[in-house]
């Protein structure tokens, strides 16, 4: 890793960490698509702010962008309150309209201004070495990196101060409201934090990919833990790790940095989705497979128990005739009987299968009979 690469890694890690914190609440509160809407509308805010101040370097552009994010949240809520449409439709109505208005304004009035579309939409983290240095003694940090680190600190600070309030209003909004936690204030506070974070990350990763930084680490952490505090820490760690790997890979492949990080985040989620202990697809399949095998043995025990001591037992309990009674294939029967023998559920008595005490107990338990 050379110095240039290190600076890009540092910036993207800061972006990932700053986004991963509010992202947890977006995922848990089902607001992921509101985050998507906010990030899309930033362009509208920038264009309108530029319309007012006519200066591409003005900090007001970023203020306008952050405001437009909050405006989006308010408009979505307003439309939803009318009861004429559901939240998803309200989101789908608001942000394309604002985006269209922004594009229209830009195309009608700012033809001459150089608002580079690629740059604006796709992010340019790899150009961080061209930005201003901010010195602390003899070490320096690039300005965008410093802003992102500041944003991360602000987000962590907010979560630390309002941890209890956010937690309760996330998991039990009704109780939170009853206790006087002002859910509206918390909601808008959170959305303002998301808006500011997205704005800060705008130059580095662009408005579309920031959604991956917000949602994917939190979503992945959600599959790994049941504790909010752990989910927050894991989310930041996953985001940061994917950022390092993604940036290095992007340099290797000589391609778009933020896009590669988003793809790596997707890959990480895919792996966790497949392999997560207890909740992953693999353990789900294994659990189902094991339950299926258990169930077969139990069925065999019940079958034998039903005919135990009856005249039919001589036919019903014959190992080589079971496939006719249980409608399994002979091969399946052989497997189930072998497992039942190993598990101490049945024993062989010549041609016949006999239940052990354990097998009888199991059959009775399932049938709801009292133990003899």
């Amino acid at each position, binding site marked *: 890793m050379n110095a240039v690469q290190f600076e890009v890694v540092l910036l993207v890690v800061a972006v990932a960490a700053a986004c991963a914190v509010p992202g947890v609440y977006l995922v848990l509160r089902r607001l992921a698509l509101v985050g998507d809407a906010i990030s899309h509308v930033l362009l509208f805010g920038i264009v309108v702010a530029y319309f007012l101040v006519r200066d591409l370097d003005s900090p007001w552009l970023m203020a306008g962008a952050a405001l437009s994010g909050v405006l989006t949240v308010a408009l979505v809520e307003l439309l939803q309150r*009318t009861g004429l449409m559901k939240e998803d439709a309200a989101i789908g109505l608001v942000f394309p309209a604002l985006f269209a208005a922004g594009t229209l304004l830009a195309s*009608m009035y700012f033809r001459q201004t150089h608002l580079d*579309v690629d740059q604006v939409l*796709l992010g340019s983290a790899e150009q961080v070495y061209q930005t201003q240095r901010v010195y602390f003694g003899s070490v320096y940090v690039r300005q965008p990196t410093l802003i992102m680190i500041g944003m991360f600190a602000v987000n962590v600070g907010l979560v630390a101060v309002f941890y209890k309030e956010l937690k309760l209003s996330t998991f039990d909004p009704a109780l939170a409201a009853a206790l006087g936690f002002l859910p509206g204030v918390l909601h808008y506070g959170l959305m303002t934090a998301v808006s500011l974070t997205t704005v800060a990350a705008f130059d580095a990763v662009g408005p579309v990919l920031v959604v991956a930084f917000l949602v994917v680490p939190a979503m992945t952490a959600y*599959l790994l833990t049941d504790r909010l505090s752990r989910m927050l820490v894991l989310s930041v760690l996953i985001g940061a790790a994917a950022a390092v790997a993604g940036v290095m890979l992007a340099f290797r492949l000589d391609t778009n940095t933020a896009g590669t990080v988003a793809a790596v985040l997707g890959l990480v989620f895919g792996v966790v989705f497949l392999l997560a202990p207890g909740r992953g697809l693999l353990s789900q399949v294994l659990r189902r497979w094991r339950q299926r095998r258990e169930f077969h043995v139990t069925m065999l025990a019940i079958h034998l128990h039903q005919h135990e001591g009856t005249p039919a037992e001589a036919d019903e309990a014959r190992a080589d005739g079971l496939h006719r009674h249980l409608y399994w294939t002979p091969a399946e029967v052989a497997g189930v009987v072998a497992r039942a023998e190993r598990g101490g559920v049945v024993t062989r008595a010549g041609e016949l299968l006999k239940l052990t005490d354990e097998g009888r107990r199991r059959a009775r338990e399932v049938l709801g009979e009292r133990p003899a």
Partner: protein
Amino acid sequence: MFADSLLSLILDPAVRPVALGTAALGAVTGAVGTFAVVRRQSLQGDAVSHAALPGVALAYLLGGRSEVVLVLGAAVTGWVAMALVSGVVRRSRVPFDAALAAALAVFFGLGLVLLTYLNKHVPGAATVRPQNYLFGQDAALMRASDLWPVLGLGGGAVLAVLLFWKEFKLLSFDPDFAASLGLPTRRLDLALTGLVVLAVVLGLQTVGVVLMSALIVAPAVAARQWSDRLGRVAVIAAVFGAVSGLAGTLLSHVLSGERATVPTGPTIVLVATGIALVSMLVAPRRGLVWRLRLTRPTPLAPSPTPP
């Protein structure tokens, strides 16, 4: 006077194919979008359009050069993304909205990586500019021959909706009942998603990634205010979609002057949004204006008790 100039604009050979194409597109997205809105999956269109980007690049990488092949590639990855979302939601506790947002951004990132690679390593690929798919190409470049895929595939989508009307309707309103009747709900779900994908990719080049989602949502939301019956809502949505496409195209031509060319996508979306807002205000019984009239006296107000 105004009507005259409007008529001459419609008859202008440069405008006519675009206006017709966007009107057809609007009709298709309106009809298909009705189901997305009713099923509370309005933002499917948004995710599909973003997820189509790697498909365009992949199709190009594999040697596809014609418009139809690129659109097909877009449809494939858009559909794969939606299938993954549905799989993740079914097999884990990740909520639908998070999975959708994640698929959107991850596929878009993948698309950017592939496009950057194309631009750097495949000669002549610089013509596949990402902006064409982000904002929609200048619709002025649309030729009459570009109309046929929209009309053909769009017509196919509408035909599919008509053929499976009963099944799609049941799936939208009571999926559990549909499953209990033995309908293949998962396959129907994927088919309905496939129709949304088809409608979205048809409009990508004209309207662009971000604005395409509005053509799925806005006409359906507008139509929903005018009727409680799914059939009527779908038909009204198709009409509103067609009107948005037509009026939006004309508006962009009217606004374009010597100073600037106004892209078609934003004007179409703004017209569609305008129709939705007006519908919300004035639609009989549901509209906000109508409600103001009804709320005097409020039905819930305690009636004056006799002494």
